[in-house]
């Protein structure tokens, strides 16, 4: 399931949400750690220390704390509060879904005659007021998402037929039709809501400015909007209780000011988005720098209904013309030296679902470009640009305004494709125009932007299936903005949507990505590095990345070294 929320850079429209990696581990002398699995971090040093306060820097904050309300799209809300206070069915750890401490074990999956999931809730699981977390909470959560007002997205929950509560610690969820991404429900960015507290009141009003309940290791103590957010330990948390006395997230929107705050010791950790220049954090004395390849990826998306990309040959020729290795190295090598280009619409963090069909377009191959373009009736003009029927192979790439990384990517690309006979113009526009108007309405030839998956669930039907091309059947709201109709892509991805066998899903992903590499509705460029920088002399414990919930989801295992 692709379920994109407001990214870490709201202004850019998209940003980073999650990260994981499958690249070789290396610790360099400058304090850089590049870790392999995305969740490996600095090992614990010394015994756990009780007490002390953590102060961390946050690039953004939540717009509100009603996680299922339309005001709650910001991923930073998840990183700083939701993941630390709301119970969820599944954790996303070591690149895998794992039953969280909320559950007594792996839920039981039945596939016939209908898809039924039976969740057994941990007997010890209680809200912070001591009330047990029960199946009624599952039922209430589903009811609010499906029937509540002002809901952010009902995606997935609409496919649920019923949530039964045979006993307080057993929730039975029956689906109308098979739904492959079921692990993302009853948790993820929403969480499970306490029915005993919220049932008698307006959920949105009760939660949007903050709430005092918790089914996680921390309790939200205060939200000073625009300034900071403070959490304290949940004394009734049934799993690993926090060591520290509090966490305060200071809102630091300015990148340079955030770096200075880390350097001056006003905050002890940053989780900055990958932009050229973040490598400066490595040079700060006493700072540990971790960088891994995330789940998010950036690509050049081609509108297959607009010239010159209406033919497959031109799209393939463009793929052969772009040196993706050079782009990735130039952008991210200073941050993550071993970063590699991606060869499908996924990153290595997708584990077995990462395949490499786009590898065939590397390295740059001028003769292939000539072969494909010539076969399609193009010939190079005196200016060295391909032309056909008086039409030159020129195109414009739209991207989001104010994003230095994207502009740099396109500037590199511009010279690369020019050498292969393509003329490319760059048009940075407001993200709201790109994503709100131009892309959905097909008013672009090519666009550079990111896809930010909410998990490593490989269902990408939303962006590739022909049924999701904006049109009458979906009220122009589909998200297949490349508008490519290709049965070879439809077939595997329509199946993945309903496939519950993970091995079969992996096979289908391989098939689907191969079809995409053949049809080239888009060209994958780079994965994003996911960065953590922290003061080693302040944070004790294993500091590591989490692709779904951010690094602070592990803060209950850390100690304050220096009080």
């Amino acid at each position, binding site marked *: 399931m*692709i*379920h*994109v*929320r*407001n990214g870490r850079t*709201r*202004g850019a*429209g*998209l940003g980073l949400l999650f990260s994981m990696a499958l690249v070789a581990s290396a610790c360099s002398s400058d304090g850089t750690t590049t870790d392999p699995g995305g969740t490996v971090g600095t090992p614990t040093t010394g015994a756990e220390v009780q007490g002390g306060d953590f102060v961390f820097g946050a690039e953004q904050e939540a*717009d*509100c704390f009603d996680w299922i*309300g*339309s005001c709650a*799209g910001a991923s930073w809300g998840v990183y700083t509060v939701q993941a630390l206070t709301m119970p969820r069915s599944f954790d996303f750890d070591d690149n895998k879904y794992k039953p969280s401490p909320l559950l007594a074990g792996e839920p039981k999956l039945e596939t016939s005659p209908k898809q039924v999931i039976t969740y057994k809730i941990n007997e010890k699981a209680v809200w912070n007021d001591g009330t047990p977390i029960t199946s009624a909470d599952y039922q209430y959560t589903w009811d609010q998402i499906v029937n509540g*007002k*002002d*809901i*952010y*997205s*009902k*995606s*997935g*929950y*609409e*496919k649920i037929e019923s949530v039964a509560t045979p006993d307080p610690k057993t929730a039975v969820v029956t689906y*109308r039709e098979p739904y492959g991404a079921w692990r993302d429900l009853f948790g993820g960015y929403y969480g499970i809501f306490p029915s005993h507290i919220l049932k008698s009141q307006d959920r*949105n009003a009760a939660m*949007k*400015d903050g709430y005092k309940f918790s089914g996680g290791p921390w309790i939200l103590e205060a939200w*000073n*909007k*625009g*300034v*900071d957010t403070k959490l304290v330990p949940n004394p009734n948390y049934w799993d690993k209780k926090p060591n520290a006395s509090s966490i305060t997230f*200071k*809102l*630091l*929107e*300015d990148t*340079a*000011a955030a770096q*200075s*705050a880390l*350097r*001056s*010791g*006003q905050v002890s950790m940053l989780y900055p988005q990958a932009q050229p220049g973040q490598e400066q954090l490595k040079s700060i004395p006493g700072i540990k720098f971790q960088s891994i390849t995330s789940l998010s990826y950036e690509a050049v998306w081609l509108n297959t209904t607009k010239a010159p990309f209406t033919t497959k040959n031109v799209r393939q020729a463009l793929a052969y013309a772009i040196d993706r290795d050079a782009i990735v190295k130039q952008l991210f090598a200073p941050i993550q030296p071993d970063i590699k280009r991606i060869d499908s619409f996924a990153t290595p963090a997708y584990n077995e679902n990462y395949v490499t069909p786009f590898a065939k377009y590397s390295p740059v191959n001028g003769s292939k470009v000539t072969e494909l373009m010539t076969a399609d009736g193009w010939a190079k003009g005196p200016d060295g640009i391909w032309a056909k029927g008086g039409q030159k192979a020129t195109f414009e790439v739209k991207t989001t305004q104010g994003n230095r990384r994207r502009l740099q990517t396109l500037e590199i690309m511009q010279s690369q494709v020019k050498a292969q006979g393509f003329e490319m113009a760059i048009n940075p526009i407001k993200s*709201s*125009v790109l*994503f*709100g108007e131009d*892309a*959905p309405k097909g008013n672009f030839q090519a666009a550079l932007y990111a896809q930010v998956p909410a998990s490593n669930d490989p269902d990408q039907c*939303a962006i590739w299936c022909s049924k999701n091309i904006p049109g*009458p*059947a*979906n*009220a122009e*709201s589909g*998200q297949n903005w490349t508008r490519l109709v290709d049965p070879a892509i439809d077939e595997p991805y329509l199946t993945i949507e309903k496939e519950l066998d993970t091995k079969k899903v992996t096979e289908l992903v391989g098939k689907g990505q191969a079809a995409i590499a053949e049809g080239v509705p888009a060209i994958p460029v780079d994965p994003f590095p996911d960065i953590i920088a922290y003061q080693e002399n302040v944070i004790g414990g294993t500091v590591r990345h989490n692709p779904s919930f951010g690094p602070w989801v592990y803060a209950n295992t850390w100690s304050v070294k220096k009080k």
Partner: protein
Amino acid sequence: MVTFVIRRVALSIPVLLVASVLVFLFVRATTDPLARLAQVNDPNAKTRLALQIGLQEEPCRPVVTTGPDGNAIEAKTPGGQPVLGCKKVPVATQYARYMGDLARRELPASQLTGRPVSQELRQALGSTIQLIFWGVLVAAAIAIACGVYSAVRQYSLLDYAFTGLTFVALAMPPFWFGLMAIQFGSVYLRDRFNLDDPLFYSIGIESDGPLSYARHLALPVATLGVQIIASWTRFQRSSMLDVMNADYIRTAKAKGLSRAKVVLKHGLRNGLIPLVTVMAIDIGSLFGGLIITEQIFSIPGMGRLFFTSLQNGDVNVLLPWLLLSATFVILFNLLADVLYGALDPRIRVS
């Protein structure tokens, strides 16, 4: 005087109304509050938000369109539910409803956060007022002292130094100065003297005591003040030079008054008149113009509120913000006029 004030206030009302129409139209034309849901895989999500923030209204019906084969198609969500289409509310109606709410003192909630706008503005204004108060106080003290000294000791070494420094300060972008100030006051001094905490903080102005408050305010106040000090110093110097060359100062000197009395009693009093009016106008415009300082120092003030609201097309915040800022500008302009008349008896408001 009273008539003058009433007339100025009355004239400002149509100005505010025109400004509010322009802002409403500008924001509606350039930003889409639904854009943040553009990539949500639920077509009804946008409709729900549009209903909530008044861009659409009931009745809502399932969207039925004509398919490629000419047959009617009911649009569906990925979950198989009908895609709902609601009645769009014209921009003029949205504006009229908004102003109606405003007239009834029922400010709609922020479209972004759902919080009462009055709460958002109150919080932002509180931070900005603190910053402006201290910034103006410090800037005025330094500017007057330097300006008077430069005028009285014209062409002295310090006059040249102040003149040079003011030009440097005027040429310095505030964001650059702010970052340099953080680097020096927060980072360098801490490292240099091996302190546990930075000497001056660079995050927010929340604090737990007067000393901490001063340490939080020092850098933002310096950043806010650097260009103001420079321009006010130049202004004060020029104004004092005019005054010090006036006949009545020569007379005062001839009468044998002490230098201090001549400068402070006769010179400064008159030399301050132009500066006070400039200060009043500058303070009014500062209420909405501290975006850079507030951004760099993470201060949740009016400038940052404006920036965030504009990015998200939140007219429910932007309009009251504009009205409040405009009110301050008008009030302080009015104050400047009144002060001018009050400080210089030769000037009478007509």
